[in-house]
């Protein structure tokens, strides 16, 4: 499985590629934003590890431009404590973030959580026409796409996973902890807003086609996908 790492810390790139290749990943690393964006647009990577502070083009700009054409999963490498970076990255469509300096095991867990889906797709592709229609939103479990009246929603991998999870459990409250564990493959940290960010992105994308709210927030407990008006 091929990963792209965009980080100007060459030493870290070397160590990381050594580590991840020992775990069965193939890593390509570049050290500036512009070059990274070109590679990301030209190839289909399983995952992109994207640093925020980059020469020529910063991480946010790379992500913004990449998202115009591609939905390749992106994990942002943010500085610890820079909450703004984290929230801004998720808003721009990053799938997850990991604060620097990170623990190698934690990084591996997140990378695996996101790439697992791709393996999942490949295994599921044989299984055809597995569709779910909930309250005007169609989930194509085989193609891993969501659509409304034949209009495909441009969801990132994480957003799709969250929407599919909510639709499968329509009318039931799905807790943030459950979403975090099933979709991001990690326990929800205290006061972590990333699930809220993803849900807010999904809402915006649904609202382009349907005016009424589909996903309701249950304060303190989680989210519900509303079935019926």
């Amino acid at each position, binding site marked *: 499985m091929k990963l792209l790492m965009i980080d100007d810390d060459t030493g*870290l790139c070397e*160590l990381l590629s050594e580590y991840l290749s020992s775990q069965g990943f193939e890593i390509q690393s570049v050290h500036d934003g512009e070059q990274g964006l070109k590679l990301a647009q030209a190839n289909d990577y399983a995952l992109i590890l994207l640093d925020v502070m980059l020469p020529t083009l910063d991480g946010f700009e790379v992500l913004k431009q990449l998202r115009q054409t591609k939905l390749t999963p992106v994990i942002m490498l943010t500085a610890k*404590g820079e909450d703004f970076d984290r929230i801004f990255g998720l808003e721009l469509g990053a799938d997850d973030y990991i604060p620097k*300096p990170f623990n190698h095991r934690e990084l591996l867990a997140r990378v695996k959580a996101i790439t697992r889906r791709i393996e999942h797709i490949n295994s599921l592709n044989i299984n055809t026409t597995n569709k779910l229609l909930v309250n005007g939103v169609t989930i194509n479990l085989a193609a891993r796409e969501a659509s409304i009246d034949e209009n495909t929603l441009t969801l990132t991998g994480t957003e799709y996973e969250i929407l599919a999870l909510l639709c499968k459990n329509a009318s039931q409250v799905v807790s943030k902890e459950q979403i975090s564990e099933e979709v991001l493959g990690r326990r929800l940290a205290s*006061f972590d807003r990333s699930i809220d960010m993803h849900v807010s992105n999904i809402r915006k994308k649904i609202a382009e086609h349907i005016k009424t709210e589909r996903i309701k927030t249950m304060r303190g407990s989680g989210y519900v996908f509303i079935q019926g008006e």
Partner: protein
Amino acid sequence: MFSSKASKSGALSWLKHPRHYLFFKIFVWFWLTIIGTVTALVFLSNISVLNLVSNEPLHGPMEKNLAYTARSIERSAYKHNRSLESILSHPRLSKRKLLYLSAEQSDISFTNKETPINIDLSLLNFTKNMPPQIVFTEQYQAFGPVQLTVPEGVFYLYEIDINNQPPLFIRLKLMPGWIKVSIAIIASLILSFLFSRNLIAPINSLKKAAIKLSSGDLSARAAISTNRKDELGVLGRDFNSMANQLELLISSQKRLLADISHELRSPLTRLKMATGLAQMQANEASQSYLLRIEKEANQLDQMIADVLQVSRLEAKSQTLAMQKQSLNLIVEHVLNDAKFEAKQYDKQLTITGDASVTISCDEALIASALENLLRNAIKYANNTISIKLSHGDAVHIEICDDGPGVPNNQLDKLCEPFFRQSDARDRVSGGTGLGLAIAKNAITAHNGTLVLSNKDQGGLCANITLPIIKE
């Protein structure tokens, strides 16, 4: 941090203790001085009314002129044999200034034209035997006498210059006494006030700036005009340049700390990564050392994060993710972790009251403040940690331990970064020395207060007050 008691007392305290205020002293002294001076002047000018007539010898052209006039009157009296009255009424003389002729023996007198009613020329009769002079009176100046002899007898000639407008001091004198007094009081009051304010304003401005500086507001400067050249002006400018220097030094020191911490992260990330790689290949023996390296790296990581958080909070560059949130939810969350931690140390956590109130806050920041305070309390408690929650106009949270407490003179310093009460407190318990600094700054960022105090029966109490912002 220092605090000034003077700044806390009411604005009117100078009324209670006027002697404590230089402003008041100077003000009163100047006012009294001016009142005294004015009163003395008025008093003296009143006395001088009694001998308002004064005189000085007459010399020069004025005397010659007067003598010439006297000779010509004599001449026309003898030559044309005319009465003194008709000579005086002659246009040549009547066009001139007022002339006054007084007989030597009798009370007979003549003037060359109508005399204003209020003028009392008889005063001049006392000067008849004196040499020519200028006589100053309230209403006029008289030049004379010059003796002249006409068939009607011996006369003395005076030329009178009437003061059309009484001089200023005479008008003043005519005012009613109460007006004079109140003018003097008001004028001197205003003058003294302006004077003393001018003197005290820079001192007050210096005082305010010094209090602000000492309480940590490094941008405070004394508002002193650059045009002021006296000692106070110089003092103010010196103070400001000192404050500039101080701000520069402290801010560059803080920035350096933040910059170093930030830069330390890249090598730390690589260190952690390399440790991870080594762990994969290490044998049993070196594994424990690698675990130790990992643990120390994590400690370093936490310290760097704390330093950066404190410096961001102090520099107010932390972006607060303000959200309306039930305080109960935050407290519950933190307390769950704390209970677990307390249990590990075999200590008890008692909670009274509740915090079922919604406040607008950055929950992660408030949680980290509470976490740090609780961790501190758990660390130093002997047996129990008590938490009291209450809310009214504001939220109050009290976290107390039953430990040894802290000497009162060190209470203020507890919230300073890296302050350690005694050398005995080491890092074995796992703190970074920044917990209380983070707590204090996080609470201040929410416009709340954190007060640390010792309980009478021993133990440290942290009192948190958070405002409830009403929509």
